[in-house]
Each structure stands twice: as structure tokens, then as C-alpha cells.
């Protein structure tokens, strides 16, 4: 990837190469063409790293555990219930929440790319975007979940949700035992990202 322009104010690390250099070259070209404002890049990253993420989803889950009416609403109209909590935005326009039960385990995937509910879970982890998870979880969910340390017997049904259109999925995990006295904040602290993808129990 030759990159020999000298009309900019970054010093290129001579060891910088491959994708890193490619991205920097494109960024600088786009700035030079007036197509982007470089400060906007930082702002976008800041937005996703600060304002989205699994802590949002955890609040939704904890509230559903505490408030039966909210739980009903969430499962009936995930979009409205989640938006009402302020978790809106790209890749979260249309939400469906699927509830685990003692006899049913849900797990979410996007076999075609990496669709994922950004407002409530943030950006997806690397494994979610990788070939192994995407190829296998629709065919052998139990074998895949076992790699996550989750042993789902054949007496428990698995429902796999492949995010092939504009609806994004989130799993409502089972509430852990002995949490009757927990506050919303305490409950939310128990909820993990993988629990809401379906690759972990809580």
C-alpha cells in the first residue's frame, strides 16, 4: 500500500502498514477532498463507546425483571418499550426481545454480516462478527454454546434468531436466583452482554 503524499500534518510511523496505513490514507484523502471533518470521526467513536453498550441493555433487562407490566410491554413491543427508556438509534430502530424460560434458550446471530442492536448492546464483539460463530450457531447451537461454557441439554429447546432484515434481537435472560431483594441497579449489574446475546446464562 504505497502512501507517499507529504502535504499533511501527520508523521507516518514507518512501521505502520497494512490496514492501519490504508485507513489513514483514506481518511486524509477524504479530508483533503472536503468530504469529511476529521473531528467527526472522534465524535462518532466517542458516541458509540460512551453512550451505547450493554449497560443500556442491562437496564432494560433489570426493569423487566422488576416490573411485570414493563416485561409484558417489552416482549409484546420491544421497539416501543426500549425507545421509551431512551435507547434509540442506528441498528436499534426495530427491536424484538425474546425471553428465556427454564425450558427455552434463545440465541442471536447474523449469518450474513454482523447485525446487532447497537443502542442496547453497543458494537458487537469480534467473535460475533467472525466466521465460526456465524456459520455454526444456526446448525449446531449446542456445540457452539458449549464453547462458551454453556451446557444446554436436549430437554431445553433452543431458538436461534438470525437477524436477516431490519429487526434487531435481544435476549431477556432468566433472573438469577436469590435476587429478590436486589435493586434495579444491583440487578442490572448482574446482566452481561453475552447473556443478552444468548451465549451466556447469568
Amino acid at each position, binding site marked *: 500500500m504505497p502512501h507517499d*503524499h507529504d502535504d499533511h500534518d501527520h508523521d507516518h510511523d514507518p512501521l505502520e502498514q497494512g490496514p492501519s496505513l490504508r485507513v489513514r490514507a483514506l*481518511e486524509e484523502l477524504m479530508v483533503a477532498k472536503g468530504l469529511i471533518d476529521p*473531528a467527526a470521526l472522534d465524535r462518532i467513536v466517542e458516541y458509540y463507546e460512551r453512550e451505547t453498550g450493554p449497560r443500556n441493555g442491562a437496564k432494560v433487562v433489570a426493569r423487566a425483571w422488576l416490573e411485570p407490566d414493563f416485561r409484558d410491554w417489552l416482549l409484546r413491543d420491544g421497539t416501543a418499550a426500549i425507545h421509551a427508556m431512551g435507547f*434509540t438509534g442506528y441498528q436499534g430502530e426495530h427491536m424484538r426481545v425474546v425471553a428465556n424460560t427454564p425450558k427455552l434458550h434463545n440465541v442471536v446471530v447474523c449469518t450474513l454480516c454482523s447485525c446487532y442492536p447497537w443502542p442496547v448492546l453497543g458494537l*458487537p464483539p*469480534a467473535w460475533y462478527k*467472525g466466521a465460526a460463530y456465524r456459520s455454526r450457531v444456526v*446448525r449446531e447451537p449446542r456445540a457452539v454454546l458449549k464453547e462458551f461454557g454453556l451446557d444446554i441439554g436436549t430437554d431445553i429447546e*433452543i431458538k*436461534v434468531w438470525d437477524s436477516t432484515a431490519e429487526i434487531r434481537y435481544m435476549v431477556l435472560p432468566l433472573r438469577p436466583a436469590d435476587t429478590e431483594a436486589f435493586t434495579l441497579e444491583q440487578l442490572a449489574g448482574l446482566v452481561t452482554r453475552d447473556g443478552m446475546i444468548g451465549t451466556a446464562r447469568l
Partner: protein
Amino acid sequence: MDGIHDLGGMHGFGPVPIETGDYVFKAQWQRRAFALAELLGGPVPYSADQHRQEIERMPAADYLKLDYFEKWIVGAEALLLQAGLVSEEELRTGRKLFDVDVARHPKVDAENLVAIMRSGAQLNFPDDARRPRFTVGQTVRVTKDSPSGHTRAPRYLRGRTGQVVAGHGVFQFADAVAAGRGPEPQHCYTVAFTARELWGRDAEAADMIHADLWESYLEPA
């Protein structure tokens, strides 16, 4: 497009790299790549479906080899080329060779973009005028159509029979958006398939696999 991106059901990718893959960004350049691909959707402009389609058009060997965020950059570069906003030589050298009409390709202000990102895109349409062809509970078959462009009917469901378990109303149609034909809104449904229907006697257990499918992917069974 029945490309390598359509991974559902394929063998050959080993165990899930959970330990080493449990991150969103591993390097600073990945953050920049993500933000750059998001940001360029404004001035170029392009949609998520067009961006996905360009990633799907990569040679299969590259798709498997390149970092996820490098693929996002490959997709953005292809769309910039198609829009005539860059040349191959510019991409190769990183040096600007011509100016673009920024009035026709206005850059997006950071706060405006974040505001849009926070409110979300408009993906669905009022459905009063369109009656759904299928109803919840109905048995449907995914067509065997195998378009060479972007499609969201994965190959592992092609020709298979399932049951409509939800109707979601009318959405823009990804195949049409990616092809540059506009939204061509259609009803979209969740369809449930048994593992046995998909994998035959090699199904792992009596599970259900669900996918959201646009109406034109489906026919009565």
C-alpha cells in the same frame, strides 16, 4: 449473492475464538475505520445495504483474510469509486488528484450525524395501503431464487419450508436499496424453521431457527 459472507451452516471455521475475540476494537485504526465508513455514508451518499453489498463483492479469499474493519474500508472505497469521488490512483497513493463538488456531496457535521445516529434511520413504511400476503401461522417456502446481487435470504434457507410466526409490517427492501432502485417497500415476516428441515437427520436437536424474510422471498407452501 451466494458469496462467502453467507456463512450459515458452513463447516471449516473451527471453534469460536472467544478468548481472543472478546473485544470490539483492538487497535485505534479500527475505530477510525468504523467511524470513517459511517461518516462517508452522508456525503457520498450510500446506505448500509449498499455498503454490505460491496463487502459481499470482495473476492472470497480476501473476505476470509481481511480484518472486519478493513472490509468496511474496502466497501467504502468501492462506493467512493462508483460515485466518481476518488480514482484508483488516489486510493493507491493517498494523494488527491482532483477536487469534488462539495456542494453536491456536503460533509456531515459531527453533531448532526450523532443526532441522526441517536434517533435512527427510517426503515419502515406506513402499511395501510398494503395487505400482507401471508398471515401468522401460515406455512411458507423460501423461493429458490439465487440473485447475483445483495439479498437477505440466506442460502441455508433457500427452498426450505417454515411457519410465519410474526408479521412486522412494511419495510424498505434490502435487495432493492442495495441495487439502487429505492426502497420498494414490502411486508416482512419472521419465519420459523425446524432444525430438521434445515439439516435433515444431522440436526443437533429439535430446535427452531428463525429469520426475518421479506414477502418476495416467500411463496405459499
